[in-house]
């Protein structure tokens, strides 16, 4: 055996330190993806996060169990430095329902591609004689993180539908990368580029298991024709400001309650859209998105069949948000 085959880059202690850094990143990813699932409205993103929590947990577990083999305490996570902590705090900060794009790009456009880059470099520099236990973990994590990043890119592309959304994505990605650079990457000593596109490519078949086929968006054609006609007439009344005409669609006993429910949206209604329909026996709950100059509101109107046709038996304003926050 040539002595060249026994040369290496990292000491045992340095290797353990890097592994604690990796475990920190994988554990943070596992926890934040888990926490975000409930806060994320869009099904493709929600299910993407759900798919990956377990993979990240296994990566953290593999790294944590490797540590005692390197004379270190098992299952310890450690950030490379304070700047890395600042990076993860920034990554985790978008938690509003309208910040899904920031959540996806932070994890799938920045941290995971960075991990792929770092794992690939580490793998290339490990010694094949005395570091195979680390190499095996690197190979697995590298392959799975690469797959995750590709899946995230597909979901991001699907959700960032217009130029404004794509600009938001690019801006958040740039800001996160700047902070990650200050940290020197997850290991504190990573050199540029922190994300190397050359190591990221995967084929669509590899990504497929991470993507759940979600049903198409709600189609208002789901409304039965006679109900659709009644709902359309109500919407026209609301949009034209004809309160008397709108009230005619509401059962007399429900008018006061509905007037009170609509009060936060008082003022000119700029537009309405049917966004949901749910059956309660023979009754139908129609969900409307109502736009006024300052607020977007969602109302659920329970329609019931009467001798005069479909009428609203009850309704609630279920949420409002400022126009500036709505998509």
């Amino acid at each position, binding site marked *: 055996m040539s002595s060249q085959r026994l040369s290496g880059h990292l000491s045992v202690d340095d290797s353990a330190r890097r592994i604690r850094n990796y475990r920190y990143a994988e554990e943070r990813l596992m926890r934040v993806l*888990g926490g975000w699932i*409930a806060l994320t*409205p869009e099904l493709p993103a*929600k299910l993407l996060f*759900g798919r990956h929590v377990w993979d990240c947990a296994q990566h953290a577990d593999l790294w944590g169990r490797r540590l005692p083999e390197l004379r270190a305490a098992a299952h310890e996570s450690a950030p490379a430095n304070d700047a890395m902590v600042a990076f993860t705090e920034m990554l985790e900060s978008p938690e509003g329902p309208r910040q899904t794009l920031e959540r996806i790009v932070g994890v799938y456009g920045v941290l995971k591609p960075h991990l792929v880059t770092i794992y690939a470099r580490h793998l290339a520099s490990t010694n094949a004689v005395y570091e195979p236990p680390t190499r095996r973990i690197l190979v697995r994590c590298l392959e799975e993180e690469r797959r995750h990043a590709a899946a995230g890119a597909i979901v991001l592309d699907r959700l960032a539908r217009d130029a404004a959304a794509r600009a938001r994505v690019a801006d958040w990605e740039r800001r996160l990368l700047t902070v990650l650079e200050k940290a020197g990457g997850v290991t504190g000593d990573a050199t540029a580029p922190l994300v190397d596109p050359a190591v990221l490519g995967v084929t669509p078949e590899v990504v497929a298991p991470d993507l759940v086929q979600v049903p198409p968006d709600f189609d208002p054609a*789901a409304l039965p024709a006679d109900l659709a006609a009644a709902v359309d007439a109500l919407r026209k009344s609301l949009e034209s400001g004809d309160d008397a005409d709108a009230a005619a669609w509401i059962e007399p006993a429900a008018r006061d309650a509905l007037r009170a429910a609509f009060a936060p949206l008082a003022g000119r209604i700029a537009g309405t859209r049917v966004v949901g329909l*749910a*059956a*309660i026996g023979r009754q139908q709950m129609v969900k409307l998105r109502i736009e006024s100059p300052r607020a977007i509101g969602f109302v659920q109107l329970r329609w019931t069949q009467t001798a005069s046709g479909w009428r609203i038996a009850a309704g609630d304003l*279920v949420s409002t948000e400022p126009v500036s926050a709505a998509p």
Partner: protein
Amino acid sequence: MDRPIAYDKLAREDRFVRMRARDVGELKVEQGLPPFPDLASRESIRERVHGIMVGELQAMEGAGRTVYDFPDAPWEFTMDMARQVWDESRHVETYLGLLEHLGGRVGEFPESTILWRCACAEDAAARVAGVNRGLEGLACDVFNQLIHIAQKIGDPIIEKAVDYVLADEITHVRMGSRWLNELTRGDAERRRKAIEFQETIDERFNLGGSRQDGHHELVPISIAKEARKLAGFTDEEIERLVKSTQRSQVY
């Protein structure tokens, strides 16, 4: 991110209509309909499948929150919860597929957030007792019934898919049994509160009293005793559950 988050932070696409289960049941009774799907028609099966799909969604969200909310919990506990997140994400996919198989669509029926509310308990032991043992135990009963109906109507797609989900649920209940014991070891008061929480759930969320002791042919939803034993329930616990269903309130 807050630990835990408020109930009303649960995020949904606009197409979902959210309502209290009690209100939905009452509105159906007013129309002369059973408060819960009786599985007597394909539409009724579709409504049940939709209810399970949103339950799986909430189970995934709840397990995900548990991974986030308890960073100081034992690592193996976190691993079990992370595994559960993955399982639930597959269950959502399974039930989305079954919904399509039955000609349904997401949002076709109102969503209630019973499971999610239980998943917001502040104590990890209460969460595993309430969600893993209480609600996932209920899921074992419901899935067992769905498999039985699928066999009766000759639908192998539903039968096989739900059977795999049931196998996972038994694992989740087993996790709940394990972690209820381990998290409360040496803390009798914490254990008492967690079990009390689970029993409240067993009594309250009983599908209108339709869950009973007896064979599938004789009762609307049969308590899945064998599945529950596999999942770590003792004979005494099953007996207590049977008794609680006899005095159960609607919902």
